[in-house]
């Protein structure tokens, strides 16, 4: 690994990241030493599938991918009786700018995920799981494959795990560079070997998913939480976080802060605390201008809005969202137009091109912003951006339309004055 130093930095010991400090945690021996696979043993030998599902439901584990859908509920949607095979897809297509938590889990503690996969599959009755990992994470994928091989060797995967008669195969599937494949139906399409075009919902993947079969799709971080829940119980997990939103979250902090990195903190930690206490505040000489609290698709918060609890409901209350809990810090020296340009370029580039508002709307917005940043902005362009973004919002096939429009909307509205000062003055 060319820069192994970079893979470990500023880690807070918690549920998921407890042993990240260990250099060889990804080796199964090291993992077993630390009490690994005990949860699997407990789940498979002492618990019923429904019991596991109930425990996860009670734990208030919400999806860590972005939408925050309760994980237990998701599992229960899968029809119990179905002659079709069922599948588990692990969403490791971490493409949201600002997000890198899954990479940490996969590199440092792949067995935690494998454990989660085994428990979830057992609970739902799945015999094949695919980990859809983004194409750029080649090294990560290799490490995961290695971990899988080790787990299989130790009998935690494959035929009749722990002699319970439960079979499970886990495969790694690498994407090839498409942000849209982080959307669950697009991920399925991609996994089926097609273009990553999101599917119409309904039918939901829980009933018609991968290869037209019932499918559970969970984020890496979500599944990585499962072993702790099984081992320590739902109340313990719930206690770590908030009433409806249990556990901890891995907050990834990037931007000009003193200590960028991941921080596993209880759900509901305030944004100010994350930035100033854990990440060490901004670099010397920089001043906070704004924060994007949940990955690029989350609406931006201004510097005076950071006294907010980082959980789904609180952030939704101020018109933003927790998303993947990726905190991007923006300093005073950065022009908002540059931020907007990056946002617009990203979504124009990553739109899959299937549905009209996203395909044309994102590129239109990008063209306007390009023009503005080239100094040819005209009066009314900011309002035009707002209008176009609202035309995309809520009208697209998949959530990417919202993801593309929300940051533009929030930037254009909250920083209207700054943006308008970039326009040509006069009626232009």
């Amino acid at each position, binding site marked *: 690994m060319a*820069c192994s130093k970079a893979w470990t930095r500023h880690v807070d010991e918690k549920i998921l990241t407890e042993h990240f400090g260990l250099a060889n945690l990804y080796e199964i021996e090291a993992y077993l030493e630390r009490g690994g696979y005990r949860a699997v043993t407990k789940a498979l030998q002492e618990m019923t599938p429904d019991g596991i599902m109930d425990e996860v439901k009670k734990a208030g584990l919400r999806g860590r991918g972005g939408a925050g859908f309760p994980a237990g509920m998701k599992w229960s949607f899968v029809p119990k009786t179905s002659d079709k095979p069922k599948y588990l897809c692990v969403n490791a297509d971490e493409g949201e700018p600002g997000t*890198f938590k899954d990479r940490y889990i996969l590199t440092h503690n792949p067995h935690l995920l494998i454990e989660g996969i085994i428990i979830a599959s057992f609970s739902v009755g799945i015999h094949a799981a695919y980990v859809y990992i983004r*194409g*750029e994470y080649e*090294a990560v994928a290799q490490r995961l494959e290695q971990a899988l091989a080790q787990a299989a060797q130790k009998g935690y995967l494959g035929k009749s795990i722990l002699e319970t008669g439960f079979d499970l*195969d886990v495969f790694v599937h690498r994407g090839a560079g*498409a942000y849209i494949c982080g959307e669950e139906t697009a991920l399925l399409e991609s996994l089926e*070997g097609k273009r990553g075009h999101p599917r119409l919902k309904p039918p939901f993947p829980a009933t018609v998913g991968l290869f037209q079969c019932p499918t559970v799709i969970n984020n890496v971080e979500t599944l990585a939480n499962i072993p702790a829940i099984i081992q320590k119980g739902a109340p313990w997990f719930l206690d770590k976080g908030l009433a409806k939103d249990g556990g901890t979250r891995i907050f990834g902090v990037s931007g000009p802060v003193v200590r*960028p*990195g991941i921080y596993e903190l209880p759900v509901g930690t305030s944004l100010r605390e994350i930035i100033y206490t854990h990440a060490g505040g901004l670099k010397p000489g920089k001043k906070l201008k704004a924060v994007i609290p949940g990955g690029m698709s989350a609406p931006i918060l201004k510097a005076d809005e950071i006294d907010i609890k980082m959980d789904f409901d609180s952030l939704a209350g101020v018109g933003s969202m927790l998303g993947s809990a990726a905190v991007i810090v923006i300093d005073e020296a950065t022009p908002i137009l540059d931020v907007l340009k990056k946002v617009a370029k990203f979504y124009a580039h990553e739109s899959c091109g299937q549905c009209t508002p996203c395909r044309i709307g994102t590129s239109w917005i990008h063209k306007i912003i390009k023009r503005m940043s080239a100094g040819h902005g005209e009066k009314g362009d900011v309002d035009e951006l707002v209008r176009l973004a609202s035309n995309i919002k809520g009208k697209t096939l998949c959530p990417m339309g919202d993801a593309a429009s929300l940051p533009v909307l929030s930037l254009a509205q909250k920083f209207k004055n700054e943006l308008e000062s970039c326009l040509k003055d006069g009626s232009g």
Partner: protein
Amino acid sequence: MIAGLSSELKKKIAEVVARYPKKEAAILPVLHLIQRETGAIGADEERWVAGLLEIRPIKVREVVTFYTMYHQKPVGRFHIQVCSNLPCSLMGGEKVIDHLQRRLGIKIGETTPDQRFTLSEVECLGACEQAPCMMINFDYYGDLTPEKIDGLLKGLD
């Protein structure tokens, strides 16, 4: 070019194909494997893959053109992909690109005449904590500064 696939690779491909209930689903990993060997996915490779997975070549082309990681034309020996997305550009991603362009004497999307380097600008690489970052082939390099880049380039090969 496609004829010269090593038997080892063919075995690997067969193993990958077997992982999926439908052959078609293996297209992404198979393409990855082939591209690693051939450098790009041209029409020959597409037809070969289509034959292997029992689909029409057009389906392969659809997939190849959709995903950014497949190249229809070969790239240089070192494919330098620099992230220019928000977290990286906050930390000076543009400077990295400018420096690389100057240093390699090529623009974004171009390959050096000696086929050593190809420079690409990519969206988020998922390493925002070490911004600005870049990827040379599949290796990540973070916290880049012009000096560090110079050192890296020198160390290559």
